[in-house]
């Protein structure tokens, strides 16, 4: 970190992006905070009602279903794609024949928009004509066929699988980038010291990748909390809210039920949950960066 002689310089770098950001994002965001204390149908003027939206929220079973689903999403997201992505990165970072093809293949779902992913997978899950049930029937596992998106116990996991499918390649790329920074000499040195393959991975490479892992986890959490499109395309939160996540819950309250104030309250809660993670993250990097 530089302590510049001219104290204005960092602000000069910041000013244009920051102004734009304040106008278009932070402004509406603060306005949303205010709206969460009002009753507003989006057409007439908001009416201030204090904390009533929040009181109602904590009695709303859909809120808790959605919250639980978001937590499931987070739990899956910070484990499965991370492990998968790291594993793939480790494997593909060596000189394997066709490594380029493999990398591109795993990254490719990311090129599709979430909406398109949702559409394609709705097709895969289609109970009568979908690929999954068709294959199960053809190999004689009829009893395994499911209404993947209509069973209240399965539906959330069915959607999370899609999200993982898309996320793993993303994590892989982040780790591949991180591995570029790992000095091969260090790994060799570990080998000389008698570390086997896994040992050198655990004691040398993994610690070196910690900064990447932190970013990956933060991104995974952001993505889990903002999850919206897949649910919206595949089930719209159904059947009867069993696959609802907070962002969808908020969206339906706002744009189907005309309750902007209530939906703003949901967003604020969502933001506060995120804020916990951000603070933890910032505290974490502060500890690290003290060493500078």
């Amino acid at each position: 970190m530089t302590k510049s002689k001219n104290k204005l310089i960092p602000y000069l770098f910041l000013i244009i992006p920051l102004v734009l950001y304040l106008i278009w994002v932070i402004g509406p965001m603060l306005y949303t905070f205010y709206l969460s204390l009002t009753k507003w149908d989006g057409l007439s003027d908001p009416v201030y009602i204090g904390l009533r939206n929040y009181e109602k929220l904590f009695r709303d079973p859909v809120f808790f279903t959605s919250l639980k689903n978001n937590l499931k999403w987070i739990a899956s997201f910070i484990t499965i794609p991370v492990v998968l992505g790291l594993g793939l990165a480790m494997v593909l970072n060596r000189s394997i024949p066709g490594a380029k093809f493999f990398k591109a293949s795993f990254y490719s779902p990311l090129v599709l928009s979430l909406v398109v992913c949702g559409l394609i997978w709705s097709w895969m899950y289609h109970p009568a004509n979908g690929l999954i049930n068709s294959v199960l029937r053809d190999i004689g596992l009829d009893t395994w066929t499911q209404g993947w998106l209509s069973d209240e116990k399965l539906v959330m996991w069915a959607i999370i699988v899609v999200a993982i499918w898309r996320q793993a390649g993303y994590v892989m790329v982040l780790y591949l980038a991180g591995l570029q920074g790992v000095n091969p000499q260090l790994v060799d040195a570990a080998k000389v010291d008698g570390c086997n393959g896994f040992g050198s991975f655990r004691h040398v490479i993994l610690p070196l990748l910690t900064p990447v892992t932190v970013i990956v986890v933060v991104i995974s959490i952001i993505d889990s909390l903002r999850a919206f499109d897949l649910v919206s395309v595949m089930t719209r939160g159904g059947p009867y809210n069993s696959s609802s996540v907070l962002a969808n819950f908020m969206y339906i309250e706002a744009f189907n039920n005309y309750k902007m104030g209530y939906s703003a309250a949901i967003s604020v809660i969502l933001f506060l949950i995120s804020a916990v993670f951000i603070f933890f993250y910032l505290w974490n990097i502060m500890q690290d960066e003290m060493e500078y």
Partner: protein
Amino acid sequence: MTNRNFFNSPWRTLGFFLLILITLLWLLPFFTALLTSVRTNDDILQQGFIAVPHELTLSNFSTAWERGGLSRYLPNSFIITVPALLGTLLLSSLSSYALARFQFKGNRFFFFLYVGGTMLPFQVLMLPVFRLTDALGLYDTHLGIILFHTAFQLGFCTFLLRNYMRTVPSEILESARMDGCSEFRIWWQIMMPLTLPALAALATLEFTWIFNDYLWSIVLLRTDALKPVTAGLATLQGQWIMDWTVIVAGALLATVPTVLLFIFLQRYFIEGLTLGSTK
């Protein structure tokens, strides 16, 4: 290790074929989509999905192209995406540089602001942003939606770029400073080239996001003539009619620009172009 003796070890060969198997499984949804897009709706619904198609057709693509008005909407998508993409990358690299490389009052606060802003589910901002755009006289203009996308993506880009820029060793920058370079020159001539891999990765991601945006285009635009390609695709989905084959074909068509960009930029981040100076 050369490719020739790679298959000498039976374990490695086994692992390799396992990898191929997993990769094919991974690509299965793509094959599904491709296959769907060249079949007819009746064929799928009557034969079931796993069947030898009675007829293959490219007509879904032409139907999607015409009915979705893609030729009309596609230019708009680029008019919106390209400036927003360049704007957000440029501006976020400015702010990231400040946040990554300078100690100043409010550094952490501003960083929190950027990261925090990305945490809010953006759907909730729809009406406030609409009101703002309307008040600024930018409703139903390309400028409005470009500015919004630029601003909105700043948070995430700044988050990633700041972290990336911190990994650049300070000696390089210090030596430039010793030579009397101005901070703006250091940013532009030293930091930016070093950040290229991250910028390329971000560009692909951001392009996918902005190009595929639909929500904001219906909120901030009213006139058909200004709307991006996603709006055209959405009209393929009627009130009652859901023509899967055409929808999937349309979706694949709309993915083409992203794929091209990906192919063009991937060498910067997938092959891991190392810039040499860091080691």
